[in-house]
């Protein structure tokens, strides 16, 4: 079996992740941050250590600025609904996932002014158009770091500079980049960062978070949920301290234990090494795919300018048939269709048919890449 759906979720998970989850449930699964007994404290410590690992990964000095959520979607919702008020203006791009686009469309219905800056057919953000859009007073610039459809890496450092010149913070959706691209929040100029735990970070599903950069004042962001935090229990108002302000209710302790182990594992491997491995696989795949007549590759077609996610179609074949054949005849698992990103597919010109998405990851090998290219060669020559 060849797993090519890392952009949906990474598989398999590093063994350390499974061990950490098992250990959490077996040995110290008290309620983290609630009680004062040993297994509650130990659970709290595991959660805290996951914050530390993530703070190191994103180069944020204070681990308490890592706020855990169930996924990147919840983190984006927290950032968007917590920050934007009717009358505010928000600028985003034409390559966004629905995790960004649906909350923004809803906010637009509620009186937030939404401007979508176009991307070219390879999914690359038009910086001149962004600069133009930022001539009007803007509350937030919200962008994805890498496309979940074509892997295109957005020019974030330049976009952040433009946003900051206009007085707007930058919210970055790293669902497709955290764990496979180096992300230094202060160096990139990212003020708010949404991540998911279960993709390239190699953690379990049900984990994610919002990182508040040192540059961002938490006073500006309202929580979208309120409730018990284990702190200031005599008050019926939500506490202002981080991370409790945004973390009501018991966190996903076992998931976060797994995520912490995953991030420490990644830090040991080195993100640069993970990236180099994926660039090698992507380059090999792109080279092989280019030799197949009738097969079209979307996106940058340059391993350095994209993640290990590649979208293709074959002239005369439905993407659903290609996906079915890959699974049934070759045990190659990928995702076909629109990938929850209609805006991105409109941008690259594949709406509503969609594409076949070949999403490589840490567990893939060069040998697998060759088998996939051979399979697509055969499917396209029928």
């Amino acid at each position: 079996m060849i797993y090519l759906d890392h952009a949906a979720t990474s598989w398999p998970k590093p063994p350390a992740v499974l061990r950490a989850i098992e250990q959490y449930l077996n040995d110290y699964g008290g309620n983290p941050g609630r009680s004062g007994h040993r297994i509650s404290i130990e659970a709290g410590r595991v959660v805290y250590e996951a914050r530390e690992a993530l703070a190191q990964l994103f180069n944020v000095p204070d681990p308490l600025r890592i706020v855990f959520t169930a996924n990147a979607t919840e983190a984006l919702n927290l950032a968007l609904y917590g920050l934007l008020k009717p009358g505010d203006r928000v600028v985003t791009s034409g390559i966004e996932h629905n995790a960004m686009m649906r909350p923004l469309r809803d906010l637009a219905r509620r009186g937030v002014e939404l401007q979508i800056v176009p991307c070219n057919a390879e999914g690359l953000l038009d910086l001149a158009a962004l600069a133009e859009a930022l001539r009007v007073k803007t509350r937030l610039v919200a962008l994805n770091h890498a496309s979940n459809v074509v892997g295109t890496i957005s020019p974030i450092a330049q976009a952040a500079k433009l946003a900051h010149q206009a007085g707007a913070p930058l919210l970055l959706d790293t669902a497709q980049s955290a764990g496979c691209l180096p992300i230094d929040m202060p160096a990139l100029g990212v003020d708010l960062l949404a991540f998911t735990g279960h993709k390239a970070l190699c953690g379990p599903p049900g984990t994610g978070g919002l990182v508040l950069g040192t540059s961002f004042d938490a006073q500006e962001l309202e929580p979208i949920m309120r409730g018990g935090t284990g702190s200031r229990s005599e008050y019926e108002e939500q506490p202002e301290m981080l991370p409790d302000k945004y973390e009501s209710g018991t966190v996903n302790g076992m998931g976060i234990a797994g995520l912490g182990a995953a991030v420490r594992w990644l830090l040991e491997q080195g993100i640069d090494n993970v990236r180099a491995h994926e660039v090698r696989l992507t380059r090999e795949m792109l080279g092989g795919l280019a030799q197949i007549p009738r097969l079209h590759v979307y996106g940058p077609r340059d391993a350095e300018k994209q993640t290990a996610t590649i979208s293709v179609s074959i002239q005369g074949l439905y993407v659903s048939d290609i996906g079915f054949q890959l699974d049934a005849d070759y045990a190659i698992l990928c995702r076909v269709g629109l990938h929850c990103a209609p805006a991105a597919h409109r941008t690259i010109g594949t709406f509503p048919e969609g594409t076949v998405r070949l999403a490589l990851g840490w567990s893939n090998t060069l040998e697998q890449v060759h088998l996939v290219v051979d399979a697509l060669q055969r499917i396209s020559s029928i």
Partner: protein
Amino acid sequence: MSQFGVVIVATTSSALKAEKLLRTSGYKEQLIPTPREYSSDCGLAIRFNWFQQDEIKKLLADSGIDVIGIYHLD
């Protein structure tokens, strides 16, 4: 008065952060349920040897951890 002092912080995350800081700096500390008479800001407090209060106060102040109070336990 006992030999112990207690650091009261705002959140359990801060308590864990402070605990880690003290431990890695070589102090013998212990997370305990916060004694009721001080505050119920956070369910966890850090108990330490009172004779080290000066160094610990300085260490915590330099770290930026939001300490609510440091008290000598009865």
